[in-house]
């Protein structure tokens, strides 16, 4: 009976993910047929949209997964040793998905592959982004290989190098935005540092989901070591969310304090303008405050509660990336229309952009679940 229920759950799950992936593929085909400018709602004033923010979501999640999993096989915290292999696998899938999404954002991804090597510009944060995440992908593959072969010495060594590259890559991704003096809302050292912290938050949230669903979808009870891991993860995540809350507060206060042009308008767009529902509902309430309460409270800090908090935070972080990318471009560079500022600019993702985003998330999950079904990823422990 249980097997039948599990099988039907599996079929429904795979069908939903398959349909989502198909939607993504249809969107990709549509974009290739009619061109980026007709398929995307991007303009010369807002050239980066939801595909960039989704790439950031995947890439930073990838870094976060490795940073948190390194607590086990690099820094020797016992509870975290159980999740190394799965964390690395999902990190690889997240990064590959991110690369896929950004390839759809670029007009010439194949030219990129040639010219970043033949005509590199080491002054460019995007050049470093490609280089660091490319190197990181290789390290992750070696790390996964070490886990599969149960070579813990190699896993620890590559994990340590990976830890450094993970922080470099995700903080450099923050610098892609932070180095632009033309965009006051992004400019400065805040975003590179913020990306490191938010990577840790993303990593913890995703790990909670991976561990919980890995057991519940197979219909098996969670072993005590994993329950203990979930509780420890919940405590760590509560601490990180508390710190993140203050990072966000300290992004807002200077934005309002002196009404600095460019920063004030973007901050107000998040607080009471076009991005306010995203900010207050998804980012602040769902992504931050609700999970923080769930994780602080002993009675809700159960494996289920930690998973729920992780799910809410993952959704919140997705919107956090979107709001950050759009808010930075929402203030026009030129004052026009009789000298009065036209206010903030308008951007809503097109159907094709949404299709690619949904497709990328579904494809990533689809491949992960498939690998879980086909291969044994359970932890074998140190020898």
């Amino acid at each position, binding site marked *: 009976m249980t097997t039948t229920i599990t099988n039907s759950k599996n079929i429904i799950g795979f069908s939903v993910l398959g349909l989502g992936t198909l939607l993504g593929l249809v969107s990709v085909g549509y974009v290739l047929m009619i061109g980026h400018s007709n398929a995307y709602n991007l303009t010369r004033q807002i*050239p980066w949209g939801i595909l960039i923010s989704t790439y950031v979501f995947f890439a930073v999640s990838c870094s976060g997964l490795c940073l948190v999993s390194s607590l086990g096989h690099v820094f020797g915290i016992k509870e975290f040793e159980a999740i190394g292999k799965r964390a690395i696998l999902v990190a690889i899938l997240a990064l590959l998905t991110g690369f896929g999404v950004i390839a759809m954002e670029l007009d*010439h991804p194949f030219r990129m592959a040639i010219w*970043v090597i033949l005509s*590199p510009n080491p002054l460019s944060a995007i050049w470093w982004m490609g280089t660091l995440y490319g190197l990181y992908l290789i390290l992750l593959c070696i790390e996964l290989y070490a886990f599969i072969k149960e070579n813990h010495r190699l896993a620890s060594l590559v994990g340590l190098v990976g830890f450094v590259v993970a922080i470099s890559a995700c903080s450099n991704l923050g610098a892609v935005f932070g180095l632009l003096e033309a965009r006051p809302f992004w400019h400065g050292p805040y975003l590179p540092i913020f990306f490191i912290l938010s990577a840790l938050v993303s990593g913890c949230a995703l790990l909670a989901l991976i561990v919980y669903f890995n057991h519940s979808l197979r219909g098996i009870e969670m072993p005590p070591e994993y329950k203990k891991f979930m509780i420890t993860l919940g405590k760590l995540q509560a601490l990180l969310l508390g710190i993140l809350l203050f990072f966000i507060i300290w992004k807002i206060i200077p934005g309002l304090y002196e009404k600095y042009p460019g920063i004030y308008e973007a901050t107000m767009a998040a607080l009471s303008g076009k991005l306010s529902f995203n900010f207050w509902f998804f980012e602040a309430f769902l992504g931050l405050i609700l999970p923080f309460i769930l994780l602080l409270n002993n009675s809700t800090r159960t494996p289920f509660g930690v998973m729920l908090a992780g799910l809410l935070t993952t959704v919140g972080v997705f919107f956090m990336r979107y709001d950050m990318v759009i808010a930075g471009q929402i203030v026009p560079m030129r004052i026009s229309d009789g000298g009065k500022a036209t206010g903030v600019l308008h951007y809503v993702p097109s159907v094709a952009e949404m299709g690619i985003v949904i497709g990328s998330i579904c494809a990533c999950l689809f491949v992960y679940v498939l690998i879980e079904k086909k291969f044994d990823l359970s932890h074998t422990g140190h020898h």
Partner: protein
Amino acid sequence: MKKKRFAMVFDISKCIDCKACTVACKAENNIPLVKDNYRNWITEGPLRGKYPKLGQSYIPGQCMQCANPPCEHVCPTSATYVNVDGIVLVDNKKCIGCKYCMTACPYDARYYNEKTGAVDKCTFCVQRTSVGRIPACVETCPTKVRVFGDLNDPESEVSKLLTKHPYRVEKPEIGTQPFLFYLV
């Protein structure tokens, strides 16, 4: 031969907002006729005075041909570069369409040209200026708002204008060191 440093000087008191410069630019440079596609523009300045005695200026703009161009710094494939005459150019075949330069430019001077498959911007009509002619926008301007020339030549009209008159540049606080000058 001595290196050139091309620049443009604007006397905005002469601008009548006829947009002949924008039209001439599009025709000269085969710019596809789509809403976002333009290399130069005219911004309306704020209204001055009180009704019925009102005044307004029109401010032509385009790529500022910065000496410290953020678009060049951010380009991951060095598709954006500065030529020997100080003109910021894009090598179309190297442009990957990441649009980082568009987010980095503080003047919104760039757009993505679907026809060339690359980000496009004002080149001071390099195809003309490299053979000693002046840019199309300068040539067409009916009220002679624009003056183009070589700042390394003290006898050029641009050098003389900037010696004689006070001037300003756009967003000097960002440190881009623009080579478009507005007489004040």
